[in-house]
């Protein structure tokens, strides 16, 4: 039996609060943690069958043109080579998140440098790699490829439904007492998940099994089936362990389709793992952005106008474009508003979702602009934000579901000793180092995605959760077990959660911060169904049933679950769908960041000294896994602020720094003590768990707090991220000249 809910309205009852097992909200360890740190958790390539062949992808070395010819014979003659797959079904680039259908296919039309155009398959990995490198290709290059969004010849789209304007911002800018009018740029970023993309495909007749590294299996299954031209039911995908995703594993990728095609052609399992360089080139990047922000405020700093116009890029034919302005319509008040969104079509690698698409870069720029307004108006940055929090969503004129930005700002300021900050830049010095503090708001839209789960109460009184949901390192195994344990009154070691297999009920998948809340709701509903069945057996009503430590307590009776089950098992399914609640109220998560930096007055290096994040995301299901998400997000923010930048060759757009030696993620020595505070909140509009997404909130604006601290330390305003030492030294020198 299935228990179903469509989120059309508030859910008044707080089901978890009525439970007594007391595992929800506890900072519990991951049950699979020991497997992971001991190397015992099987990731995709760990499933290698003994008889598997290996495939290595061949890449295009022009950025726009046609593949005319390849010297297949010479490579086929090499030792160990089994096949060269150049099938028309090969993917140009990965599917976008939640596409549910194949992306553009066909290896002959080249759209970017690095595009996979063939797969060389051999008995060993080394033979395949050798063959892939030896394969001679003949391209007909189209010399006119536009590879940079600021190329004057770039084709720029201005989608009508993504422009918005109310009031008269130009007039507001004229009359406002304080204004900011500036351009901000952020470079391309990559997800840099630890586990490179890999797939092993194996056919049994016309049925395909794929071991992969993916975030959203129900969509991936549809995408893979569509790409291959077969039925969804012929495809099974397994991804029980995923070594990080951050958006890069949302949609089916070229390696999966290539492995499936090769395995079919050869009649043996085929494994395709990407090298780190291939991950950089043929997986999604976050688009670079150019953001024009205008702020108009009155004497007291109250915003009367906000303009946020963004230019992003993507390949021709891709629907996704970085939703830079996503949080701008509702974060601050202001009657006069302009939202602009333009997309340059360029021959760079495909742009897609990287952790918190939109807010990660969009809020960062907006929050730097707010700091500029604070400086211009002489109003404290925390206060400036507090006085501009709207009472309701100012763009849609609907209420907020819950809203804790003010608490996050105040709590953060208090804990960080913000009142010790000197507002004039460059006022605090420690030897060669200039010290400064900065802050920013955090916000991220909250989403609910259709999701299903099955829970079984086994005859021995243990529980099993099954769903094709993934745990990409986030703690899904843990929180789903906690929800089931709480609802069924089972201790944690009596609940097993099974994930990452399309044989289980289809879930939301991991993405957009919605996984735990969406799929957790499905688990809660499935447990409700089981509770109902238990009531029937015990002849009591739902209110009268208490489940704790493997026992049911009804009236003055306490009965062990196996006794009630009497050799049988109970199965419940849960199904949640988004509904009208999305339009009735504005749902989002909020927070604040505070950062202290030291900037070397002589070399311009920035050293982050301490950082604090305060976040409200509804009910916190597990403070340990939630905190880890925030730490990870803020570390992404450090990279965005200081070091991370994709560099493209201006001639052909190829990524120059396609490894971790030159794409500078922050290393441990760059990351100081980070503190995370999670505020207590419930959001009854979000879902019956009253929990909201937390996986991305920690990056949405984090970089701005650091850039703003650099300004407070030095008086140098970096608008072109990352704030590398050479940019800062330029500012330091021009100030002393």
């Amino acid at each position, binding site marked *: 039996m299935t228990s179903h809910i469509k989120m059309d309205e508030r859910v008044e009852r707080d089901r978890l609060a009525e439970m007594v097992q007391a595992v929800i909200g506890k900072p519990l360890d991951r049950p699979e943690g020991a497997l992971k740190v001991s190397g015992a958790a099987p990731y995709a390539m760990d499933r290698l069958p003994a008889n598997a062949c290996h495939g290595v992808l061949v890449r295009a070395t022009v950025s726009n043109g046609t593949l005319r010819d390849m010297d297949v014979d010479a490579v086929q003659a*090499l030792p160990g080579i089994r096949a060269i797959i150049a099938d028309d079904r090969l993917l140009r680039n990965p599917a976008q998140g939640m596409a549910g259908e194949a992306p553009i296919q066909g290896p002959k039309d080249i759209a970017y440098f690095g595009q996979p155009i063939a797969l060389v398959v051999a008995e060993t990995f080394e033979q395949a*790699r*050798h063959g892939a*490198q030896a394969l001679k290709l003949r391209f007909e290059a189209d010399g006119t490829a536009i590879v940079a969004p600021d190329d004057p010849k770039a084709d720029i789209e201005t989608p009508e439904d993504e422009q918005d304007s109310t009031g008269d911002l130009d007039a507001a800018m004229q009359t406002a007492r304080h204004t900011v009018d500036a351009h901000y740029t952020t470079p391309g970023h990559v997800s840099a998940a630890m586990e490179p993309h890999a797939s092993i495909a194996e056919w049994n007749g016309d049925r395909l099994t794929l071991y992969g590294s993916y975030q959203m299996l129900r969509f991936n299954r549809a995408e893979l089936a569509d790409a291959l031209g077969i039925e969804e039911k012929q495809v099974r995908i397994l991804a029980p362990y995923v070594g990080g995703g951050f958006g890069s594993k949302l949609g089916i990728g070229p390696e999966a389709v290539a492995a499936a095609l090769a395995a079919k052609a050869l009649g043996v399992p085929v494994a395709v793992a990407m*090298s780190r*360089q291939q991950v950089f080139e043929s997986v999604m990047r976050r688009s670079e952005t150019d953001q024009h922000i205008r702020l108009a405020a009155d004497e007291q700093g109250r915003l009367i106008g906000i303009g946020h116009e963004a230019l992003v890029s993507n390949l021709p034919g891709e629907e996704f474009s970085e939703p830079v302005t996503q949080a701008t319509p509702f974060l601050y008040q202001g009657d006069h508003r302009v939202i602009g969104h333009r997309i340059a079509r360029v021959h760079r690698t495909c742009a897609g979702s990287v952790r918190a698409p939109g807010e990660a870069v969009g809020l960062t720029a907006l929050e730097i602009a707010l700091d500029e307004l604070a400086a211009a108006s002489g109003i404290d940055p925390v206060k400036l934000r507090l006085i501009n929090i709207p009472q309701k969503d100012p763009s849609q004129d609907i209420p907020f579901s819950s809203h804790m930005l003010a608490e996050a700002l105040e709590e953060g300021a208090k804990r960080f000793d913000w009142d010790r900050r000197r507002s004039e830049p460059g006022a605090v010095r420690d030897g060669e180092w200039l010290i400064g503090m900065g802050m920013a708001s955090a916000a991220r839209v909250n989403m609910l995605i259709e999701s299903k789960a099955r829970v079984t109460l086994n005859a021995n009184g243990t529980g099993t959760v099954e769903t094709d949901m993934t745990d990409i390192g986030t703690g899904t195994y843990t929180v789903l077990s906690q929800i089931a344990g709480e609802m069924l009154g089972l201790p944690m070691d009596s609940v097993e959660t099974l994930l990452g297999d399309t044989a289980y009920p289809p879930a939301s998948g991991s993405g957009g911060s919605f996984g735990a809340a969406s799929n957790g709701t499905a688990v809660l509903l499935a447990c409700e169904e089981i509770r109902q069945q238990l009531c029937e057996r015990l002849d009591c009503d739902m209110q009268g049933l208490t489940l704790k430590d493997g026992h049911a307590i009804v009236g003055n009776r306490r009965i062990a679950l196996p006794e009630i089950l009497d050799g049988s098992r109970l199965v419940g399914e849960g199904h949640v769908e988004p509904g009208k609640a999305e339009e009735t109220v504005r749902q989002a998560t909020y927070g604040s960041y505070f950062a202290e930096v030291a900037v070397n007055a*002589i*070399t311009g*290096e920035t*050293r982050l000294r301490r950082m604090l994040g305060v976040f409200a995301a509804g009910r916190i299901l597990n403070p340990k896994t939630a905190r880890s998400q925030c730490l990870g997000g803020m570390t992404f923010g450090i990279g965005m602020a*200081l*070091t991370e930048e994709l*560099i493209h060759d201006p001639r052909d757009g190829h990524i*120059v*720094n396609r*490894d971790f*030696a*030159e794409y*500078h993620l*922050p*290393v*441990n*020595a*760059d990351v100081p003590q980070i503190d995370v505070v999670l505020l207590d909140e419930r959001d009854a509009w979000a879902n019956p768990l009253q929990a909201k997404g937390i996986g991305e909130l920690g990056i949405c604006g984090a970089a701005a707090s650091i850039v703003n601290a650099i300004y407070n330390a030095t008086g140098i305003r970096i608008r072109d991220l990352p704030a*590398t*030492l*050479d940019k800062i*030294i330029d500012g330091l*020198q021009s100030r002393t000249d």
Partner: protein
Amino acid sequence: MSEGRYLRPQRLDEAVDALKGGGWNLVAGGTDHYPARVVEQRPEDILDLTGLTDLRGIGEFPDHFRIGALTRWTDLIEAPLPGWFDGLKQAAREVGGVQIQNRGTIAGNLCNASPAADGVPALLSLDASVELASAGGVRILPLADFILGNRKTARRPHELMTAILTPKPARPARARFLKLGARRYLVISIVMVAGLLEVEEGRVAGARLAVGSCSAGAQRLPALEAALTGQPADAGLAMLATPEHLAGLSPIDDIRADAGYRRDAALILVRRCLADLGGLR
């Protein structure tokens, strides 16, 4: 298409004998060798040096130390050595991360001759020489004459490096190494500076400074060294360094930094290094 040969001699005479024919690519820790082959591998003849275990280790002699060619960075960090090795030890700790230091050799760093090799300025400041062996015998070259440019050395195809020799300073000496990169650690240098001061009766009796990543190969700063000699050994040494002293450098623009920044930062690092060295007791 040839598969390539592979040889792992156990004794030096076998190694130099094999090298007579030429055409071998030598591999020690492999930490420069393999990254250069990520994108493309071609068949090649590999002479694996790791069997020459006699070449690993540091020995003390009356007037010098001998660092065997297979000595790894971690060996150096852990060895009990006099204080004037501190600069080289600081460099050792900045070569990649611990895994790299556990595999990579000092000789490999020199033979690879990257402009950004952290070992080179530190060893230049120690006035090191390198020992090259071939079937014809052994020759010793000053390090400055061994590194000819970006990935160019004076090593002949039939030679292999057997040791690095560092003379003991005539007077009490102190040494430092400073590195600047785009992040705090695990990063290829934008600029690095190594310095050694010999101090007698409170004055600089001898100075050797070298700057890396600002030229095709790391450079000593002879004019500055001369200007320092005879000066009181205190933190005030820093201000004796001028842009003119760095005129011999020829930094380039690349994705890590531009030439102008490198030139500025080099001067600052030289000054920091001198302030540090002068301030030491």
